[in-house]
């Protein structure tokens, strides 16, 4: 199937859309998808998977072991994920962390979360995040010359750091 945007390359990304009141699919090649702002994770994954297989072909001992690894929660193999572009469950991210990391790095440029935390987040991460927020508030308080507030914040920070 040819790309509907350039009409030249093979379409690899299929996007659901509404055209004149009807549900339709737009088929795009990797380049056009990227140009139009659609993250073609399928393409990215494919590349990693090829590389992954390539490294196995190199006669690695763990070859069969590694490629047969399955998520014990949803049953996905890394091949399933790479082919569909879909991660099966939360547990897959633990099982296939090393395999997924290069793609994650390429998409986001970073590999460590900053921002809101779920209640299930670890206590260390929660503490770090609270500290970062307090320090931000402290900088702001000093800038605004709210010294009483700043002193209180400084005490809170000291207390938390002592606990950690």
């Amino acid at each position, binding site marked *: 199937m040819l790309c*509907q*945007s350039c009409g030249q390359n093979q379409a690899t990304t299929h*996007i*659901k*859309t*509404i*055209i*004149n*009141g*009807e*549900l339709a699919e*737009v088929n*795009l090649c990797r380049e056009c998808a990227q*140009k*139009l*702002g*659609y*993250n073609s*994770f399928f393409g990215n994954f494919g590349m990693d998977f090829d590389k992954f297989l390539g490294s196995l072909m190199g006669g690695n001992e763990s070859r069969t072991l590694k490629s047969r690894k399955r998520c014990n*929660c*949803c*049953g*996905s193999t890394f091949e399933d994920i790479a082919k*569909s*572009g*879909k*991660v*099966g*469950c*939360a547990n897959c*991210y*633990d099982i296939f962390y090393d395999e*997924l990391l290069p*793609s*994650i790095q390429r*998409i*986001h*440029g*970073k*590999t*460590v*979360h*900053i*921002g*809101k*935390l*779920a*209640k*299930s*987040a*670890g206590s*260390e*991460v929660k503490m770090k995040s609270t500290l970062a927020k307090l320090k931000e508030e402290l900088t702001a308080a000093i800038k605004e010359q709210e010294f009483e507030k700043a002193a209180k914040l400084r005490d809170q920070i000291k207390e938390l750091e002592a606990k950690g």
Partner: protein
Amino acid sequence: MDKWYNKSGNEGDVVISTRIRFARNLKEYPFPCRLNDETKCKVAALVKDAILNGNSALASRFEYIQMPELTQEEAVSLVERHLVSPEFISDRQGRGLLLLDDESVSVMINEEDHIRIQVMHQGLDLAAAYDIADKIDTLLDERLNFAFNDKLGYLTQCPTNLGTGMRASLMLHLPGLQQSKAMNRIASTLSKLGLVLRGMYGEGSEPKGALYQLSNQVTLGISEEQAMSNLRDVALQLVAQEREARNNLTKNIEVVDAISRSYGLSRYARLMSNEECMKLLSNIRFGIATGIIDKIDFDIINRLMIETQPATLMKNVGKKLSPSERDRIRADVVRSTMLKTNIPNNRRLEN
């Protein structure tokens, strides 16, 4: 209840709306792509209960919609009103939607992720929209167990959403930049800043109605606040560039003529295709913003842009219509609305 799209907000001449969307999943269940319909229904029941029986002032204002029960027109109309994604209605089994009465909040259950919280506000209004999404998210977090990893943040079916799981988008009306052929240059610059600019209707180089969506692309390693602040900074620059492009274009009599003709057609045409309608409404919006057309509230045009979409037209009439019947009714809707906006002339007489 007045729908969100019946209002216009900050920078309303360029920014039509703000959308904040969070992707969340339940720890105990595989992602929806790995669930059968029965388990999907279980997940839907959990999320529905968490919202409707949650300790929120909004709870009583939500309606729960079982997606398989809708007609095709009703389902497509949800997409036209920007309440759900096209993907969400492509297979409706096991999917549910929680919708706030003013349609400013929708919670998609079992789309790509178990939960997609979406908040829409008029104009440029990132902080307020975020605030509501954040509250609903916190409420759900209290009652459910979210899939979360200390390193990767909120876990999502597609790794493009890892981290905050937040996508902030602005719907922009950019006829000035589009007609100045500046869009390709701008889109490629934006991608380097971790943002995406995409046509809302149609994938070609000239999306219908000159409507574009600007969103953050990166969600991991950047906080919600920082992502929104980047988006806002870039959006304000685009707003300034768009206004300048409009001012330059309106020195051209051909552009002024096209705008004035569009206004005339909107008031007198009897048949109007979807494509023509979007073009006319875009021109009229452009004309209002530059003072070529007498002042009409942007919200009237925003509303028409949604109400004249094919499925929403049929949903409002309450029956299936052939394309030619739709063209007639569309023209009726536009004509009657635009003729009612005759007030500016009267005002001028009074002055």
